């Protein structure tokens, strides 16, 4: 661990000294990601994406004649470190905007600094409270959880499923989903007949599911990230429950189908970010080309498929770039530029930032998909 840290710090040192040779007129963008630690599945692709984009852009000659330089720090998912590093980015590195942090907790901690120092912060975390209520200097790129929840409930409404059962993970992702689902279900006239939770490390959910089975729901909505939902899917098959299952966007990857096995996951529906199903999109879809290009160049550079999480950083970078393209150079101009930019096609969806909405995504950010024979099929 220490060795790795040493290596990281040396590379950072090299990076900063190397770029010091650059002529004036570089645009410095900060990155604040949980590259190591428990949230590294978020931070790692985010960091890689930001580096990839900057390299690609500079290879093409930069933007408006100036190069882009990214300064990325690893927060380790630690709130205190995120705070310190955000200060460092603003005061020492003098970045014009920051992409990140990766998690909601870190983002909320960094928000006051961004507000005080007046530097635009584009968070890569999903928590709704980051941009609601709207803060002048803070934006975020992932769609709100409630958009995914709404997507599921709209689908359930279409299929006339009235009584729903919830099974959610007891971490922040699950409890946020549970809250949103309950609120929206009440508004839309659903009846919640069972409301069960499980811990992220649980290995058997048959007790919860037995209870759900007895409540006879029309649909089961599961909200969590792997491996929980995969275990639940297998448990449901074991118990012989035939109810329609909805999963959250948290498992919108092939890994979920692999873990849950294609037989057990047959027919399950879930809202997926478009990156997960980019090859199924119609070529007329405005995001189709962008998603394909992103995935291709990510795969070329790092040998793995691009992930939705990396997409959050992608969108943050593009938002800043769009503002810069229109002549913004100072943090204040970039902030105004992002807000007034209008429509921007990104990985997570089509952004339309306004002074009242600093996320700018709507239901179109997700595509409802069904699992058929181990693959995604878009639900019409």
């Amino acid at each position: 661990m220490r060795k790795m840290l040493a290596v990281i710090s040396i590379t950072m040192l090299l990076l900063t000294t190397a770029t010091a040779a650059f002529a004036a007129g570089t645009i410095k963008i900060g990155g604040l990601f949980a590259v190591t630690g428990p949230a590294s599945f978020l931070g790692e692709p985010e960091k890689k994406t930001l580096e990839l984009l900057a390299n690609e852009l500079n290879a093409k000659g930069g933007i408006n004649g100036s190069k882009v330089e990214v300064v990325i720090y690893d927060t380790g998912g630690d709130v205190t470190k995120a705070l310190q590093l955000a200060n460092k980015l603003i005061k020492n590195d003098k970045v014009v905007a920051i992409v990140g942090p990766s998690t909601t907790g870190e983002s909320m901690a960094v928000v006051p600094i961004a507000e005080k120092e007046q530097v635009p912060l584009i968070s890569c975390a999903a928590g709704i409270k980051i941009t609601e209520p709207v803060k002048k200097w803070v934006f975020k790129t992932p769609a709100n959880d409630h958009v995914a929840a709404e997507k599921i409930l709209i689908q359930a409404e279409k299929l006339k499923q009235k009584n729903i059962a919830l099974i959610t993970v007891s971490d922040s992702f699950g409890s946020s989903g549970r809250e949103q689902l309950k609120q929206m279900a009440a508004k839309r006239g659903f009846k919640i007949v069972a409301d069960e939770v499980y811990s992220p490390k649980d290995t058997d959910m048959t007790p919860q599911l037995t209870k759900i089975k007895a409540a006879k729901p029309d649909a089961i909505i599961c909200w969590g990230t792997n491996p929980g939902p995969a275990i639940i899917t297998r448990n449901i098959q074991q118990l012989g429950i035939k109810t329609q299952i909805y999963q959250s966007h948290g498992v919108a990857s092939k890994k979920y189908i692999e873990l849950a096995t294609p037989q057990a996951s047959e027919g399950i529906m879930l809202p997926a970010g478009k990156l997960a199903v980019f090859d199924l999109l119609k070529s007329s879809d405005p995001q189709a080309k962008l998603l394909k290009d992103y995935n291709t160049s990510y795969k070329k550079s790092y040998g793995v498929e691009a992930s939705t999480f990396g997409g959050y950083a992608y969108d943050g970078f593009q938002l800043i770039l769009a503002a810069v393209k229109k002549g913004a150079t100072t943090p204040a101009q970039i902030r105004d530029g992002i807000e007034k930019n209008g429509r921007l096609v990104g990985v997570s969806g089509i952004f339309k930032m306004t002074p009242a909405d600093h996320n700018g995504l709507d239901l179109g950010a997700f595509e409802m998909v069904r699992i058929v024979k181990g693959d995604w099929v878009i639900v019409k």
Partner: protein
Amino acid sequence: MELLNQVTQFVISGLATGSIYALIGLSFAIIFNSTGIINFAQGEFVMLGGVLTIFSLNVLQLPLAAAIVAAVAVTTVIGILFERLAIRPLKNATPLALIIITIGASILIRGVVMLLWGKDTQALPAFSGTDPITVAGATLLPQHLWIFGVTVMVIVGCRLFFNHTISGKAMRACSFNRRAANLVGISVGRMVLFSFVISAAVGSLAGVIIAPLTMTSYDVGVMLGLKGFCAAIMGGMGSGLGTVLGGLILGTLESLGAGLVSSGYKDAIAFFILLLILFIRPQGLFKKGETERV
């Protein structure tokens, strides 16, 4: 009737999970009995069993049986290295220091596995299909039968080994009184090594047979290790039936608690019971109090 069916399912699910805890608990107890150390890297042996089997199966392309044998063998070697490199050089260390060392080792093993195989969860295919079996209105999977079977085999094996072989008796002698055992010519050092071998083998075997059900990743060992530890404590750290019953009771209570009370408090219920037992019967549920002779 509905409720009865539900309770049967809770109990059966609980017993299945409980056997996993029992197996892990047993491997805790084996090391404790010959060294007085609580090996907190035990959960990592469990994790290694699963991860290495998947590696041998997918990357080395071994057949399942060979992959399992390879995984158990490699984990056992790691157990031996662990004892040789981290436990033996510190001959006169206090048990507390040794326990801290095992915690360090667990973090190290976890880190290495994470760097080598990444953070993704992986699943092993079930040994004999995934068609559920119905028992008295409740269902379980063929894999559960494997778990029950292996648990029974390990218990019987332990019993025979500790009561009917010279090595087993020597290990028990070490646990009663190391000095006296040494005086009658038992090599205590070798017995300690032996206990690590058995415990790593049992732990990794547990990891292998549960991997198709619970899936595995570099960090599954933490919670499983903790639950196995609870089982061992409930059984009074004995390497026999006590620990197994401890595991089964823990699993069943968890499952009943989640089903009948609230799933939000599932782990809290388990750990509350552990605390209760430690307060009321610190020597374990099934052990008579021991008197120290001076």
